[in-house]
């Protein structure tokens, strides 16, 4: 069999010059050559390796097993037994190889030679790049103007955010601005206000008894998409004789809504009323968790008074568009089952309203409810030696454009960007380009020449996740902590460097006091340091060994290891984990020992006006009759992904759309405007307009038009650039007064045939 196949390969090789249907026909039918039993294998027995790494295409931090053949990475699969993804990956992670091998990656440091934003750069060496940056930093430092350096980062995974903060502190700067994604973030602001604790929260989805989502398309836009999918499979058919119900409240029939038992098409912006009216029902019918409310909460009386008088199902039925009976039925089920109310980081009031439902059923620090992210002490870096203890200033990235332009000259002289693309993904993105004009010098650490990098003076090419050492702690939704710790799977392409390595190199090149704050020459050295510390701490469990598909898992480790063996094993397996039971939050506890139903900021707002979620009839009157609803498909989670062709192709599968910006509109609404299915239309707000492809859909609230975020790039590589339109330009740059976060929803638009 082998012989015939080889002979066949040789023959076909000889005939490679003659291809085409006819030749193939001759070859096989007339020459009587045997057909191979299956595919022609190119290299049947090339040696392969499976190496651990991590995916950093979203904040989840899934463990990855990379298949390496002849030095090429040919496939990514999930790291088996990794607590976040248990061997699976989401479509983004699977497309990660294309990010690594993308033909338009930035692979060399460059300096600007044209005008800002024009995109003309010339390659320079790393030595020159680092020297230029260090000279700038040193000059400011010597002048005592360290505070005139600021850092703006987008989604930065792994250890990098910690290193950035240390870098800034060590240098004496206090401004690290962090851009938050438009959708799919957890409602941390409400959690901070009501639980009086500044850490991060988690939804323990997989153990929930009912999931009631207020506008969060959690199967698609979630901080940990693989965990959301895993939880869903488990809730539906993963437990004997138990199927957990899922209810989706959202103006659009999202994927989550399609997969739910019930879809309540609420009017956009009214999710909060719906939550409060359900609270009304829970209190009226005494379906709340009395012990939690009595022992662990304050403000229940005030809260009850408000929802009793302002949020009865009958009162909110009209503005929300959801019948009172439905509200009562769903609220009753929620209370009886002690469900989990999930919502995203919307405006503060909506976050608060949804969070209050979890408080009412006592689902805080409870299995199947809300848990806290935690980190074992052994994982954190040793305390830094920094010259200043000055607290970092507020990091509200949306305030940055105004700050940059607030004085002449700009209070910021050097702006460092890492993985931040506000010129594409923020409300009214063009204002960022204007603001950047005021900054004398901008350096961008980026893997792609994106819209924002075009405004930089210096471009530093960053490596992707697989090309770096990794020290990436994260917490799974059930509270299990995992630190993915591993070697690079392959060397960085060309001149690219990992951001952590770059930061460490800059600190070393700068010298004191920066090198005291960051006393490592490379991330490799940091990892080795930490390996010793983790060995000494004797905590955490090694991940099981990677088993190659088709082989039984090797036996478990031998009990005693010396530090070298430990390090070797750990790096080969990809990390350590701490089971959820080790969490220091086994039960509800806050410094004040109380869950606050009506935190101060909210109380003031309630006093000012009981109309918490106005319907803004004025907008309709002003000629903008439709409400714009923006969402991120999983393919474009956090607005990122359009540069990968496979993600472009799957983003619009619900409507079989791809490679175009589509807009969902109800046939009755479209019909009244004379818009046919598939036609090109204008969508205009008071701030901008775009042309999109209208798609009729029965799965949309008739007063709404829904458009996906993530398309409409003017840069960012061949598959992103020039495809679709960017609805961010329709959005006014407004911020929530309590959270400072941009308000992505709530724009009124008009549409007409293009």
């Amino acid at each position, binding site marked *: 069999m082998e012989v015939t196949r080889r002979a066949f390969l040789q023959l076909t090789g000889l005939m490679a010059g003659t291809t085409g249907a006819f030749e193939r026909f001759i070859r096989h039918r007339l020459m009587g050559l045997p057909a191979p039993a299956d*595919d022609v*294998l190119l290299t049947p027995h090339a040696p392969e390796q499976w190496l651990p790494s991590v995916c950093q295409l979203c904040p989840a931090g899934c463990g990855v097993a990379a298949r390496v053949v002849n030095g090429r990475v040919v496939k990514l699969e999930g790291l088996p037994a990794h607590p976040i993804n248990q061997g699976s990956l989401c479509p983004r992670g699977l497309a990660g190889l294309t990010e690594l091998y993308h033909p338009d990656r930035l692979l060399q440091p460059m300096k600007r030679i044209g005008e800002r934003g024009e995109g003309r750069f010339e390659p320079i060496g790393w030595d020159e790049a680092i020297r230029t940056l260090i000279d700038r930093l040193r000059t400011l430092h010597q002048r005592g103007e360290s505070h005139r350096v600021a850092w703006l980062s987008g989604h930065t995974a792994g250890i990098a955010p910690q290193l950035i903060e240390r870098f800034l502190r060590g240098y004496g700067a206090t401004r690290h601005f962090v851009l938050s994604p438009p959708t799919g973030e957890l409602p941390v602001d409400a959690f901070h206000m009501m639980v009086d604790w500044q850490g991060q929260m988690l939804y323990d989805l997989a153990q929930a008894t009912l999931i009631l989502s207020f506008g969060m398309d959690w199967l698609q836009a979630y901080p940990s998409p693989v965990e959301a999918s895993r939880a869903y499979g488990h809730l539906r058919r993963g437990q004997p004789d138990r199927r957990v119900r899922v209810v989706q409240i959202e103006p659009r029939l999202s994927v989550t809504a399609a997969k739910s038992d019930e879809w309540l098409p609420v009017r956009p912006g009214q999710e909060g009323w719906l939550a409060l009216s359900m609270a009304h029902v829970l209190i009226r019918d005494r379906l709340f968790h009395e012990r939690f409310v009595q022992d662990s909460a304050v403000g229940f009386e005030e809260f009850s008074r408000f929802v009793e008088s302002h949020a009865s199902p009958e009162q909110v039925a009209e503005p929300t568009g959801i019948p009172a009976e439905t509200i009562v039925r769903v609220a009753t089920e929620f209370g009886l089952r002690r469900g989990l109310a999930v919502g995203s980081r919307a405006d503060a009031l909506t976050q608060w309203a949804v969070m209050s439902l979890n408080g009412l059923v006592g689902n805080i620090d409870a299995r199947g409810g809300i848990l806290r992210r935690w980190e074992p002490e052994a994982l954190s870096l040793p305390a830094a030696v920094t010259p200043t203890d000055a607290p970092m200033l507020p990091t509200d990235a949306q305030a940055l454009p105004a700050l940059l332009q607030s004085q002449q000259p700009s209070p910021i002289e050097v702006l460092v960007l890492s993985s931040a693309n506000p010129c594409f993904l923020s409300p009214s993105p063009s204002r960022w380009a204007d603001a950047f004009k005021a900054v004398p010098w901008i350096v961008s650490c980026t893997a792609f020449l994106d819209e924002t990098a075009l405004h930089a003076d210096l471009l530093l090419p960053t490596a992707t996740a697989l090309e770096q050492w990794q020290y990436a702690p994260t917490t799974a939704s059930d509270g299990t902590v995992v630190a993915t710790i591993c070697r690079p799977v392959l060397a960085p392409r060309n001149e690219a460097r990992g951001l952590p390595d770059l930061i460490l190199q800059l600190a070393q090149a700068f010298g004191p006091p920066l090198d005291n704050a960051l006393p490592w020459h490379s991330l490799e050295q940091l990892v080795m340091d930490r390996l010793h510390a983790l060995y000494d701490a004797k905590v955490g469990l090694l991940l099981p060994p990677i088993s*190659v598909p088709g082989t039984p898992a090797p036996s478990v480790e031998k009990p005693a290891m010396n530090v070298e063996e430990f390090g070797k094993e750990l790096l080969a397996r990809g990390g350590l984990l701490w089971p959820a039971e080790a969490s220091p939050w086994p039960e509800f506890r806050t410094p004040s020992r109380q869950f606050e139903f009506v935190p101060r900021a909210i109380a003031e707002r309630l006093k000012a006006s009981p109309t918490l979620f106005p319907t803004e009839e004025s907008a309709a009157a002003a000629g903008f009759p439709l409400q714009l609803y923006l969402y991120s498909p999983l393919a474009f989670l956090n607005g990122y992904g359009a540069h990968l062709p496979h993600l472009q192709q799957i983003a619009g599968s619900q409507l079989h759309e791809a490679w175009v910006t589509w807009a969902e509109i109800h046939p009755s609404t479209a019909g009244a405007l004379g818009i046919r299915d598939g036609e090109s239309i204008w969508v205009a707000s008071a701030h901008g307009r775009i042309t999109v492809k209208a798609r009729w859909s029965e799965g949309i609230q008739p007063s709404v038009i829904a458009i996906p975020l993530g398309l409409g790039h003017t840069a960012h590589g061949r598959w992103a650039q020039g495809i679709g339109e960017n609805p961010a330009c329709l959005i006014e740059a407004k911020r929530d007064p309590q959270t400072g976060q941009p308000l992505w929803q709530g724009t009124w638009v008009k549409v007409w045939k293009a």
Partner: protein
Amino acid sequence: MVSRRALLQRAVVAAGALVFLRRAPTAQAASGQEADAPRPTHTPRWGMVIDLDKCTSCQACVVACWAENNQPLPGPEAHRAGRVIEWMKLLSVHEGSYPRVRQRLLPIPCQQCDQPPCTTVCPVFATYKNPEGLVAQIYPRCIGCRYCVNACPYTCKFFNWSEARWPASMAQELNPDVSVRPKGVTEKCTFCHHRLQRAKEQAASEGRVLQAGDYVPACMQACPAQAIVFGDLNDPASDVSKAQDNPRRFRLQEELGTEPKVTYLSEA
């Protein structure tokens, strides 16, 4: 849509006409192949169950299949022409009207029919059902007539209208276990047959027989929701046989008599 259906109908008629011409040679080819292979004691019959109540429509399976099987890159032109090659694809169907609307989302690989209408129409025997029930495609034999593309009632065969190209840097990520198909041939989901080969070789090198779980297609491997179960339908104790034994089961277009080996479990 209408024209495609018409095409499909015609193809089914054509398939019927060709059946007589085909029988004998297929049988010969199959027995010829078995002659040099060691005769296994148990012949598996590979099949799949997709539980739609677990599936979240995330499309990890779609991307995993692309990545595993060196399928040509999708792009705007291919999409507009309806020529994107996706062996695993997500089908979406709306039912009802607002607000009582449902959307069904189904991941669709080749159904690996036990009575495949696609194999019987092939004039050059480039597509056939192998002894383990996999419907295979022999690329070097395919003359690109596209009869089978039209005969498949599930639109699971794909024709290479143009040459598959990758930018030089991206050619590195191609799977060395899977051939790159030339322009002018038809291709389809193979249930990741090369992974079966690999698993068999691995088992042989360890001197053992193939075990349940050794052979897992890329889509199932990737699926976060564990919605896909795969295995030997001839083994009543296998996970896939057990998963099939479910009142929620249904198969796509069963009335055509294709006897798919992919079974779906409905949502409620």
